[in-house]
Each structure stands twice: as structure tokens, then as C-alpha cells.
């Protein structure tokens, strides 16, 4: 729970693509260096096969696999595992800086629902977040799938879950420069795709949520429904459009922004555990 903000600063303000991962078979934390070597060799081999990412200069891909001890929810959770891919230029090996090209991390925050029911040889880290080229994601994913017999799936976020997120985080304590709460809807069944963006002043959103939420720290589906209905009713009053008939595809608050294709950005470190807890839950329900 007490996550050192400095260690996790690199996680903030980046767009992470989400995946759910089934439990890893015979994953040993003591062997992280070995895994890094094996993954590096695998990527080099894939590049030789012609699936190279970089065209032109052959660059070494350096792999680092590390454990993020503090990044977990309960004691039952496994600590997060971070995989980083950097390009090391062969020209000047000593003093050139490695360029970080891809990061991915596995984590579990209060994933007890899954870890409770799993046999001993399995490590539960149901949420996988990536940042960087898709080609690297696919290579890393393939290696993990082959080595630990696990399965990756893109984690989509339904409009229902997105509205839960808006309600959860629109009511957060605001600092001076809080950005607007924005909801983006996609209108179905039109010949030309149409997106509607609905921006709400963060203070108004917080004021609305404060009148609805009965118990601080607790949120019910009814409260989320009332919150969204108020927003829809307000929009309808002004524009005569029923947003409730459109598909909510993206939400943005001062704390977190999320897209239904499973892309999130976490903006403030104090809300990182809460956000990861929700995402872990979504990942687990996709697995089960």
C-alpha cells in the first residue's frame, strides 16, 4: 500500500495498453536475470527471422526484468514484475545511453479472487500494461506464453465500467489546475462515424457527485446510474440528444483517463493503487 512515489513515477502520465494474463506456470522470482537473457536471445532470433522492428542499423535489444516490491495491494498479491527493452547502439558501447523503447509490467492489486483458487505452481499477475511498439509487445507476449504457458488478451473496458470510473474519480479532491471531466461518445449506426465530446467543469462534476454519494469511500451502482443520468439529462436539455443511446468510448478526469479499447493513463500517484485495483478486477473477470 505504501508505494514510494519516486519508484512509481515512471508509471504516471503514460498511455498504457491493457491486457489480462492467465496465471504463469513455474515463474520464479529468483530467475529474473535468466529470464531477461532468454527473452533477449528470443528477440534477437525473431529479428533475424525478418520480424525486425528497426530498419537499417542493427541495434542490440537489451532486456531488463525486475521486481517492483512495493507495487501490490494485499500481502497475498505477488509483487509487480517490470520488463524493459532498450536499444543499445553498437557504435559507442561504453558511453552511449541506452534508449528505452518499450516497457511492460505485470501486476496484481487485491487480486485475491484469482490467487485464492489457483494451485501452487502458478503465479497470479492478471494485469499486464504495455507502452511502446506493438511489435515488441507481441514478441514479449509470445515469449511469456511459450515459457509460462499463459494467455494474453486485450482488456476492453465496457461503457458500464467507464461510467463507474468517471463517478469514482470525478469526485476526487481537486488541486488548483484540475482539468475538465470529459466524456467521449461514439454514435452508432451512422454512415459517417460521429463522436460527441462532453466536457464538464471539474468543480461542477465534483459538486454533483458529492450530492449523490451517501457514504464517503463507498460507491454503489445506483449512485453511478444517478450521476450519469444527471449528466445525460443536462446534455439532453441543451442539445436534444440522448447520450444514453450512444456508446461511451473514452473518459478523462484529473486522475485517470481511459479508453474502451483498454488504454489508460494514470495522472496522480495517490490514486495509482485505487486505479490498479479496479483494473486488476476487470482483468480477473475477463480471465474467469
Amino acid at each position, binding site marked *: 500500500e505504501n508505494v514510494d512515489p519516486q519508484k512509481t513515477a515512471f508509471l504516471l502520465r503514460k498511455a498504457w495498453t491493457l491486457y489480462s494474463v492467465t496465471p504463469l506456470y513455474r515463474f520464479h522470482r529468483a530467475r529474473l536475470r535468466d529470464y531477461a537473457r532468454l527473452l533477449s536471445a528470443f528477440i534477437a532470433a525473431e529479428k533475424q527471422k525478418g520480424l525486425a522492428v528497426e530498419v537499417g542499423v542493427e541495434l542490440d535489444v537489451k532486456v531488463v526484468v525486475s521486481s517492483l516490491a512495493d507495487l501490490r495491494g494485499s500481502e497475498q498479491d505477488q509483487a509487480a514484475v517490470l520488463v524493459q527493452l532498450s536499444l543499445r547502439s553498437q557504435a559507442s558501447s561504453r558511453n552511449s545511453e541506452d534508449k528505452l523503447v518499450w516497457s511492460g509490467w505485470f501486476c496484481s492489486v487485491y487480486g485475491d479472487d484469482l490467487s485464492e483458487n489457483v494451485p501452487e505452481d502458478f503465479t497470479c499477475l492478471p494485469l499486464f500494461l504495455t507502452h511502446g511498439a506493438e511489435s515488441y509487445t507481441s514478441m514479449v507476449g509470445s515469449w511469456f506464453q511459450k515459457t509460462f504457458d499463459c494467455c494474453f488478451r486485450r482488456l*476492453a473496458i465496457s*461503457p458500464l465500467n467507464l461510467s463507474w470510473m468517471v463517478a469514482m474519480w470525478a469526485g476526487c479532491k481537486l488541486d488548483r489546475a484540475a482539468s475538465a471531466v470529459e466524456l467521449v461518445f461514439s454514435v*452508432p449506426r451512422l454512415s459517417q462515424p460521429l463522436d460527441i465530446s462532453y466536457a464538464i467543469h471539474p468543480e461542477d462534476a465534483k459538486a454533483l457527485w458529492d450530492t449523490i454519494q451517501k457514504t464517503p469511500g463507498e460507491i454503489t451502482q445506483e449512485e453511478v446510474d444517478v450521476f450519469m443520468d444527471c449528466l445525460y439529462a443536462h446534455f439532453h436539455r441543451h442539445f436534444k440528444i440522448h447520450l*444514453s443511446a450512444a*456508446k*461511451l468510448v473514452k473518459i478523462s478526469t484529473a486522475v485517470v483517463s481511459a479508453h474502451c479499447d483498454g488504454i489508460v493513463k494514470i495522472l496522480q500517484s495517490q490514486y495509482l493503487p485505487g486505479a490498479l485495483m479496479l483494473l486488476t478486477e476487470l482483468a480477473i473477470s475477463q480471465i474467469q
Partner: protein
Amino acid sequence: HIATSLPLPSERDHFRPRIDLIVFMIDIKSKYSLKNVEASLAHVDASFFLGKVCFLVTGVGRVNACSIETNAVCKLGEAYCSPVLFCELELEGIRVATAQRLLRMLQICAGHIPGVSALSFVSLMRTFDDD
């Protein structure tokens, strides 16, 4: 006969044949469709809820596009003592099977199946759900 909401326009009341079954369609991707159905229910005479009403939830194939909690729809079905069917209209097989199911229900509700009344049929469906 298809209507986007109830009540039906009163001008055509005397032309309208007897209504044997009302199927309320709820699109799981549209919160608006649920609200619309809830508002329309208020205009239905109580006698219809003795087996002549059914809720049809469409779009269930796309779990990731859910805007409605399925729990909310099931509660609606319980509140109005009417069955809730789930289907995915985009898949032809399920579309055809659902149509056949509805047609069968309609035959019962219209009294075309001897020995089975709308009320006895819906109570059969209800005991199945409770299991």
C-alpha cells in the same frame, strides 16, 4: 406491429386488432433503451402481465459494449413477473432461434395451443429461472 415507445397513438385504436403479446426490446448497448422501456411499462394494462409480456435483451454477444447491468434487467423481469430472454441479433442462428421462440410464445398467448394458457406457460418459465 412495431412501436418505438408506448402508449400507441390513440387515433388508430379502433383499427387495431387484439394484442396478444408485448415484447419489450432492450439493447444492452443503450441505456436509453432501458429507460424507454421502463417509461413505456407504465402505459401497459395490468392484465398483460399475466403472461403476455416478455423482455428481450439484444446485443449480448458484445460483452465489452455493455452499457446496462444485466442484473438490472433481471430485476425488471422479476418486478413485472415476466420472462427475460437474451439474444444476439447479429448472429443469424440465434436470431432465427429467438424468432421461433417468440412465435411459439405468441401462439400460446393467442390461445392457439390447446391446454396451455399464457399464464400457465409463464409460471413454467418462472420456476425454471428460479433454479
